[in-house]
């Protein structure tokens, strides 16, 4: 229902900017949501959108009426009032109540996303290592243990199973990055020197999305939303959501192949990057 309201609001606004779009499915407005908690975030967004839109319309109506009715007339005098105690109390208490309600109403969703991290035992754990300007991903392989020969590594391509909790362990090698999965309503900054973890659960596979959109090449995308250097805008990737069976097959195949590929050098720094360093000092200054 909120979604309809959003679309209606945007529909009203759309003619203001008469510009054709290329007709991809997401269009304007919030893109399709494909995560378990995304619906709640959208709900909060739409709730705030409704409240702010009503406030905006009311205040602007008063403003426009005042502009029309109270134009300058020679010889007329304005009303000589310095305020109204009653009005002040009303327009302090009413917004205060709305804002407090909003604030407390949001906490549940926030806790769900950021604090109630699911248990590792029934989740897929994926390590994410950010560097200028690549997202590196590492999976535990079929043995379920990291740092073994069969750990598949991917660059800029994240594979996750659908309908299963995915825990991302995120670190950065050099500067601050931010992992953004717009369709999953997922975002987490990555601070060098800090170990973080975040989670999501996808509800739709890429294949489903492709058939729904009628676009064989469609892919969910990964973005970086924290300025990380000159190629910040190229730091993107694709997110492939696979059915559980396909994911298992993919992982098994990758685990076998993993030994044939040279491991991207960045993973040598994974443990170090948790606590110490991201760059090497120049030798001539090393003793300073």
């Amino acid at each position: 229902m909120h979604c309809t309201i959003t679309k209606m609001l945007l529909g009203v606004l759309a003619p203001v900017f008469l510009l054709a779009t290329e007709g991809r499915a997401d269009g304007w407005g919030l893109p399709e949501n494909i995560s378990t908690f995304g619906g709640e975030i959208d709900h909060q967004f739409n709730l705030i959108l409704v409240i702010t839109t009503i406030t905006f319309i009311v205040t602007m109506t008063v403003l426009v009426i005042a502009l029309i009715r109270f134009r300058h007339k020679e010889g007329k005098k304005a009303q000589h009032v310095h305020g109204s105690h009653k009005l002040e109390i009303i327009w302090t208490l009413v917004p205060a109540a709305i804002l407090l309600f909003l604030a407390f109403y949001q906490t549940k969703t926030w806790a769900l996303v950021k604090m109630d991290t699911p248990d590792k035992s029934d989740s897929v754990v994926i390590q994410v290592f950010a560097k200028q300007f690549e997202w590196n991903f590492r999976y535990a392989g079929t043995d379920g243990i990291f740092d073994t020969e069969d750990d598949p590594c991917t660059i800029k391509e994240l594979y996750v199973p659908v309908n299963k909790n995915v825990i991302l362990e995120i670190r950065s090698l050099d500067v601050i990055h931010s992992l953004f999965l717009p369709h999953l309503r997922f975002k987490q900054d990555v601070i060098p020197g800090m170990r973080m973890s975040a989670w999501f659960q996808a509800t739709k596979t890429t294949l489903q999305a492709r058939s729904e959109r009628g676009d064989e090449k469609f892919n969910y995308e990964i973005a970086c939303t924290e300025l990380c250097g000159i190629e910040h805008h190229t730091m993107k990737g694709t997110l492939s959501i696979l059915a559980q069976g396909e994911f298992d097959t993919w992982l098994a195949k990758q685990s076998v192949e993993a030994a044939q590929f040279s491991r991207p050098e960045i993973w040598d720094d994974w443990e170090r990057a948790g606590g110490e360093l991201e760059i090497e000092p120049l030798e001539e200054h090393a003793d300073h």
Partner: protein
Amino acid sequence: MSTAVGTAEQAGAAHHDEHHDMGFIKKYVFSTDHKIIGIQFLFTGLLLFVLGGLLALGIRWQLAWPYDLPMGEMFPESMVNATENAAGETVYTMGGEFYTMMMTMHGSVMIFFVVIPLLTGAFGNFLIPLQIGARDMAFPILNMLSYWMVPPALVIMLIGFFVEGGHAAAGWTSYPTLSAISTAYSNVVPTPGSNWGQTCWCISLFILGFSSIMGSVNYITTIIKMRAPGMTMMRMPLSTWALFITAILVVFGTPVLASALFMLIMDRTLGGTFFLPRGGGQPLLWQHLFWFYSHPAVYIMILPGMGFVSDILSTHARKPVFGYKPMVYSMGAIAGLGFIVWGHHMFQSGMNPALGMTFMISTMMIALPSAIKTFNWLGTMWQSNMRLNPAMLNAISFVAMFVIGGLSGIFMASTPVDIYIHDTYFIVGHIHYVLFGGSMFAIFAAIYHWFPKMFGRNMNSGLGKIHTVLTFVFFNATFFPMHILGMAGHPRRIAFGWDKVNETGYEFLADVQGLNEFMTMAAFMLGAVQLIFALNLFWSLFAGKKVGNNPWGCNSLEWETTSPAPHGNFGPELPTVYRGPYEYASPLVDEDYLPQARKLEKA
């Protein structure tokens, strides 16, 4: 008591000075007269507004048409990418280096060299002594120094454009480690600006911080100690109140920024590791320190505007300000709460999520005083007798745009919603509604309103109205679509979302790329419209219609003296204040205004 003594001395000093012919340099360049210093700040700010605006247009061009940079040959070779197309013509594109640098400098110049100096430097200096009935600032030399800290800061900032590697390119927030890794101490170059550009940026802002602090100490002292007889705190115009509260924010906030900048300079030049995990530093420390200053700085950039708009609305609506005391208290509340909301910039940073909740609640609550102010402005306009001149139109635009800016802030204040819109164009739209829609409209309003007092002439009203209306239209066309971009998930600070010619970029943003083009066209129109303002300003400076001392029929003290005000501001005797500044439409007199300094015979 002390006020009386201070004024007596001041009067004496002013008399003494009048006997000397001061010479051009002393009078206009190294002046200690607050009015001249204010005007110096005004023109410095406006000049840099041009620079910041041009940078913005460069950014907008890149975002709309990333595949083609016209006149690319004008730029240094290292900054642009040149390729040959099929027809054998050289095609230039901007590339990430150039874009990131421009975007960083647009933010830094606009915030630190345009909005803050214009609001607190220009109008703070010009208005405070005039509105409280003082002959000058409490510390005139300190005041001169606060202006003359700006040129060195500016020169260093501008030199950054020409150093090897180009200017700082880590955003106006300059988050480490991107900004803290310098080529002097590492074998990597995280951005081209990590060479000397970023260091110049730090040093420049460090010096500029002194300017702010010196100015603010002066404002606070002047307002507390040098008010004219009868000018109680609760009889001060809201502009002065706003500047007073702003000055307190600056005095508490700026030293924190200065210390953070100094730590960053140490990391960059002396091998420190405050913000580098290599030596046990913590990049988040910068974010805490930076936002501890920069969030109050957002209010530094809007509070004076609120004050000016309150004055201007009341004057041109010919009606007392609605709820003077709630206005003052809400500004105080904004200032107080402003220091405990900085964490809302860091919801997604990896800061403890429990802390995020408390910051959400304080942030939601800071919307309250802003709401109260808005309702009071509407109350001021209701049942009024509005003159729709350029100053008033700008003030009304301020109110309307500030409503949007304030309301869009609630989205960011909500932690779960912020997960999605954090660091997207939604926040870019929000800050431009507050900074351009808010602060810049207030600055325009203030210029139109106080121009007669500054130069004794009025600005052309027709041109002013055209400028205001067109600015309003193109401003909204430029910045409102940013919210829609943000909803689509368009990250901020990326060099382009979707390049439709080369088919590169984020595919989920392909739909909204048309909006980017529309916004850029509107932005160029917005830039062009400002030429009307520039023309009006300079033409009026020399050929504007001469006006009397009080062309608007204003109550506050600055309109008691001549236009422009003489050295020492008032005649041999300072005015005495009998009432508050907003006695418009008073039933006690026939006219629709009753100046603060007019003594009424008891009826």
